[in-house]
């Protein structure tokens, strides 16, 4: 003990220096997204190395790879499915059902799925962000939608070369156009910042028929998500006092506390859509 104290005293200058630098670095990490994403890169590769060693020891060695394969498979299926949303030339009789092999632009679908890995996520803050392991190099850009196998997860906000940050649905800044699947009534999905299992659906008129258990899906009007992607299930229905709108509490389909694999949805026609929505619309009398 005496030696320890003597040691600490002897090198106290150095220890104090390390302590102060550590404080400064923690401050930096909390402050700057860019530094955060670079740091997460480092910690990601470190923990990745540790995990891969652990995998070699245990019998779960193939689990990760299998999972990856499954995700790739899902991507193919989803890409094939989303072809339903595109318009084919009337004369085109040839409908290649495996058309991810086709290179004809007429067969491209509007939405392309990119498999991603969630590497950071929070659920207990008023504005929750998540981080995914792909970035600009994989063609990920701002305002793209994030989903997983269960439903909508969030929207990309910042992109670096290899990583992206996204707002999760558990963010008080998020407002997403949604509809009730049963009667196609439009509404807006928000989060009140309280609890991560439930969100709220607003702007649904109170004269419509909404029941507990109804499914809430994306409306497809936002160009971020395709139509009919699961968001959640209605839990409680009440009418906002003084308005004729419902206040609907719903349960999220995605479990935000255990995000693992997911997809980023690229809208390949976004430029075209933007170009026509920026043109001033003619006045129709």
């Amino acid at each position, binding site marked *: 003990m005496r030696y320890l104290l003597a040691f600490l005293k002897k090198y106290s*200058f150095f220890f*104090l*220096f390390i302590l102060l630098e550590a*404080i*400064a*670095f923690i401050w930096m990490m909390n402050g*700057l997204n860019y530094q955060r994403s670079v740091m997460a890169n480092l910690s990601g590769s470190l923990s990745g190395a540790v995990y891969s060693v652990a995998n070699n020891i245990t019998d779960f060695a193939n689990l990760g790879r299998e999972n990856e394969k499954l995700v790739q498979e899902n991507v193919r299926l989803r890409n094939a499915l989303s072809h339903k949303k595109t318009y084919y030339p009337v004369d085109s009789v040839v409908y290649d059902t495996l058309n991810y092999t086709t290179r004809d632009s007429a067969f491209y679908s509007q939405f392309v799925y990119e498999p991603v890995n969630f590497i950071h996520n929070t659920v207990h803050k008023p504005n929750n962000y998540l981080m995914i392991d792909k970035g600009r190099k994989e063609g990920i850009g701002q305002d793209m939608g994030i989903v997983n196998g269960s439903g909508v997860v969030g929207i990309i906000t910042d992109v670096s070369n290899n990583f992206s940050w996204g707002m999760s649905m558990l963010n008080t800044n998020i407002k997403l156009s949604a509809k009730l699947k049963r009667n196609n009534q439009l509404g807006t999905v928000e989060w009140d910042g309280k609890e991560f299992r439930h969100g709220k659906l607003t702007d649904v008129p109170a004269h419509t028929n909404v029941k507990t258990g109804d499914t809430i899906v994306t409306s497809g009007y936002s160009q971020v998500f395709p139509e009919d992607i699961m968001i959640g299930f209605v839990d409680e229905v009440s009418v906002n006092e003084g308005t004729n709108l419902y206040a609907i509490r719903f349960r999220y389909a995605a479990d935000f506390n255990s995000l693992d694999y997911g997809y980023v949805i690229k809208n390949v026609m976004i430029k075209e859509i933007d170009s026509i929505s920026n043109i001033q619309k003619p006045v129709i009398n």
Partner: protein
Amino acid sequence: MTINNIIRFILLVAVQVIILNKINFSGYVDPYLYVFFILVLPFSIPRGALLLLGFFTGAVIDVFSHTYGVHAAATTFMAFARPGVIRMVSKKQEYETASAPGISEMGLRWFYFYSSVLILLHHAMLFVLEAFSFDHLILLAYRIVLNAVITLALVFIVHYLFPAQK
């Protein structure tokens, strides 16, 4: 002495935050004159206090310029290096008789070497942390050297205009 240092600290932080942080010639010019405060602290200051003052100075600059700990890290590093640099640039214990680093006390040559080494260390740490990558190494080196030279020039101007009172 203490009062002088407090006044100098306030003035340097004010000049840094109000004037120098706003200057943006050619994009790359951002000198950090506030390091002058650490440069001219008395020789007799305990090393621990030196570190804490370094951290505190950087932290104050960070708070004002929204840089989240970058300056605190760089200035702490500079304070950490200061005793070693003093030993390096001095002949045998010549600073034991002097009170604080300065041109009048230690001579122009001594002060020039002493401050250029410390400013370079500070700026290197600062700009590397700011960029947080070595992707554009030449640009990074250019920014470090350019701003170190400008800061050094400013340090000399301030030193001549407001010589440290004994």
